C-alpha cells in the first residue's frame, strides 16, 4: 500500500534548496516551490517510475495542483 508520507518524502528528495518541511500533502508545488522547474518535472517523473513503477507524463503533473493530487494519480495507476 502506498503511503502519502513516503510519497512526500520521495518528492521532497528531488529538491536541493527547498527544506523538506515545506512539502506537505497540500503544497501547491508548481506555484509555491520556487525551485520548481522543467528539470524537477523530469525528476519527479523519473522518481515515480523508479520507486512506484508507474509511468506519469508532463500532463499529469500539470493537472495536479497539490502533491496529494499527484499522489492520487500515481495511486490510481498502481
Amino acid at each position, binding site marked *: 500500500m502506498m503511503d502519502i508520507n513516503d510519497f512526500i518524502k520521495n518528492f521532497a528528495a528531488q529538491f536541493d534548496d527547498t527544506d523538506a518541511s515545506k512539502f506537505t500533502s497540500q503544497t501547491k508545488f508548481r506555484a509555491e516551490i520556487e525551485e520548481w*522547474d*522543467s*528539470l524537477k518535472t*523530469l*525528476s519527479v517523473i*523519473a*522518481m515515480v517510475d*523508479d520507486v512506484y513503477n508507474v509511468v506519469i*507524463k*508532463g*500532463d499529469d503533473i*500539470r493537472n495536479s495542483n497539490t502533491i496529494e493530487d499527484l499522489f492520487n494519480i500515481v495511486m490510481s495507476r498502481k
Partner: protein
Amino acid sequence: MKVNPFSLANKTVFVTGASSGIGRAIAIECSKMGATIIITGRNAERLNNTFIQLEGINHSQIIADLRNEEQTKKLVNELPTLDGIVHCAGIITTLPFQFVTKEKLDEIFSINFIIPTLISQKLVEQNKVKKGASFVWISSIAGNLCTSPGNSMYAATKSAINGVVKGMALELASKGIRVNSVNPAVVETNIFSKGVIADEQIRNEIKKYPLKRFGKPEDIAYAVIYLLSDASAWVTGSHLLIDGGYTLL
C-alpha cells in the same frame, strides 16, 4: 546544359529511421533530387507511408529492427552498392542524470551510436560503399555545443557520433568516401502536434531561436542533400550546424 551540382541523379541512397520525422523527410526530398532510395524502419505501415511518398521509380523498402543482430546482418547483405548512407534512426530518452542506469545507457548508445557504427563498418568491409560516396549522420547540437535538462545520455550519444564521424572521415578518405554530420536544434515532429507539450511552453521555447521558429524536417533534409551531392565533394569530417541561431545566444 550545366549539371545541377546538388542533383542526386544516379545515386543510390540508404536511409535508416525513415518511417517518421526527419528520416521520412530526408527520403522524400532525396527522391525529389533524383536519388534511388532504399529505406528501412521497424514499423511496416509507417515505413510504407514514407515509401508511397517517394518520387520516381526503383525505390525499395526493407522492414528491419536494427536492434536485432540477425535482421541487421540480413539487411546489410541485401543492400546494393551505395552512393549515400544516412544514419537517421535514433531515440531520445529524457532522464535526469541521477536516474541514469546501465540498461538505459546501453539502449540509447546501442540505437543511436553502436548499431549505425557497425552497419557502416560492415558496408565498408563488404565494399558496398562506392568511391565518391557520402555518409551523413544525424547528430545534434546537444552534446556538441550545448545540452538541456534531462538529456545527458542523449547528448553523450550525439557527441560520440561526432567523434566517430571524424575518425571515419580520416580513415575512409583514401577510398574517396566522405563522412559528415548535421547538427540540428529542435525539429518539429509529431510530439508537437499531439499536444504533449503545452502551447505556452512552446511559445517560450521559440523565443530562444533568433529565426523565431523550430526546425522543419525539410530544413534538415536539404542539408543532407548537400552533403550527399557532389556539391560537397571537398567536405569531409564536418559538423554542419542547423539551429535557427539557437546557439548564438
